[in-house]
């Protein structure tokens, strides 16, 4: 009987594992916001592929403060360029402003805030592990464009000496937390 139960547990786990491989929505459901923040319904997680660019058009309301966090599957090795543009709600692209430009992980920057985009780091003051975040406050309602460029994996050579780039597939999540603006 013990053997049967053991076997069933293994099968259940295998089933679970194989099914959850590309389920990017798990990226969102496993993360909880800490008060006073709550998870915004604008948060989004999607299947992403190396060599492709993804744009997230995010409408922001003027009565809230937002916190942006980025997460990516380890398969991408943080080889991702993040950029946030304030579209300012105007149809004139010359009014757009780049408000954040994060060219991917750089080991030399040692996860300093504002340069590290993905890896968690230990806060020197509290000793707690934190994930880099960016606090954004809209003065008037606006549209942010989050551009995520998943760079191609470094080229490799096959057995015949031909160069190729491996296509990496994984999940990238833009987690958006929100709270009422303090002055409201």
């Amino acid at each position, binding site marked *: 009987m013990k053997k049967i139960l053991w076997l069933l547990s293994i099968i259940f786990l295998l089933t679970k594992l194989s099914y959850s491989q590309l389920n990017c929505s798990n990226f969102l459901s496993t993360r909880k916001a800490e008060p006073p923040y709550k998870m915004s319904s604008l948060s989004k997680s999607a*299947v992403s592929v190396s060599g492709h660019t993804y744009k997230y058009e995010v409408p922001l309301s003027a009565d809230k403060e937002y916190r942006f966090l980025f997460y990516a599957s380890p398969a991408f090795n943080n080889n991702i360029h993040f950029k946030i543009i304030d579209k300012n709600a105007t149809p004139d692209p010359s009014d757009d402003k780049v408000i954040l430009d994060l060219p991917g992980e750089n080991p030399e920057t040692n996860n300093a805030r504002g340069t590290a985009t993905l890896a968690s780091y230990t806060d020197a003051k509290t000793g707690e592990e934190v994930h880099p975040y960016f606090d954004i406050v809209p*003065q008037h309602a606006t549209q942010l464009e989050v551009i995520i460029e998943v760079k191609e994996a470094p080229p490799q050579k096959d057995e015949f000496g031909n160069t190729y780039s491996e296509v990496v597939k994984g999940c990238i999540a833009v987690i958006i937390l929100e709270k009422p603006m303090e002055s409201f």
Partner: protein
Amino acid sequence: MRKSYLILIFFSFSLLIFSCKKEKKTEQKASQAIEQNDTSEVEIFYLVPSPDDIFGFASSSDLYFNPSLPNPPENVDKYNNTKLQELNFGVYSADLAYCAAFGKKEETKLYLNVVKQLSEKIGLAEVFNESLISRINNLGSNKDSLIAISNDTYFDIIRYLEKYNRINSLAIIAAGGWLETMYLVINLASYSENNPTIQKIADQKIIFNNLYRFLQQNTSDPNVKAVFDEYTKLKAIFDEFELVKVDDKHNMSVDGDKIIVGSSVKIVINKEQFIKLHNVINEIRADFTLNK
């Protein structure tokens, strides 16, 4: 004993085959999405907030709970095709958020049940698992817990639709939810300059444009196309709203680490545009909910 092992082996294989089938389906869907990328190189996601998130409106002093505004629960039986069922699923989700935002326990429970009923018709019954049903049955009267359950239900539905790549359904539900939220707010507010609620209605131009483009991305589906065509009337009105340059960044005091955005343009709606928007919202809503 040997027989039970045979049954177990058969059961195990069935489970594995089932899981492989499911995984294959997920991968196929993922690869379909990737193929779409190949043609455009850049994939764009237009994000639309949930009715709960839009109901930050509820804090405004000129909004109140009007029980005659939400779509009556008994209308649920009128919706006999997928388009109407999905649209009104969004409509009822917004009504649910409205009741929760004003702490109306009995109404919240009523609309949770309507949403559950419609979810069964559009293949979302799985979202209402035992844990959610138990939460509904033991619902307290605390306003925060009502908002939390309304929010969580909508969140779970969106994640479920994304997980199974039901993007067309998601677009229609988002369209229905946004329309009902606007219907409730615009029928509660009266126009006056410098009214914060009116400003929030003007700001919906940004959210509407996202919703419109999201629908546009999916017009290969006839149901989405029908909704998109209706929303073209609204697009024409929102396009009339004026964008006024402002420069009052210095008036805002925030923590130094925070990034200020949206500081140079404000959206403005005048009385005539407000009335036009009010009328078209009411007209489309009557059409979608069959309240004529």
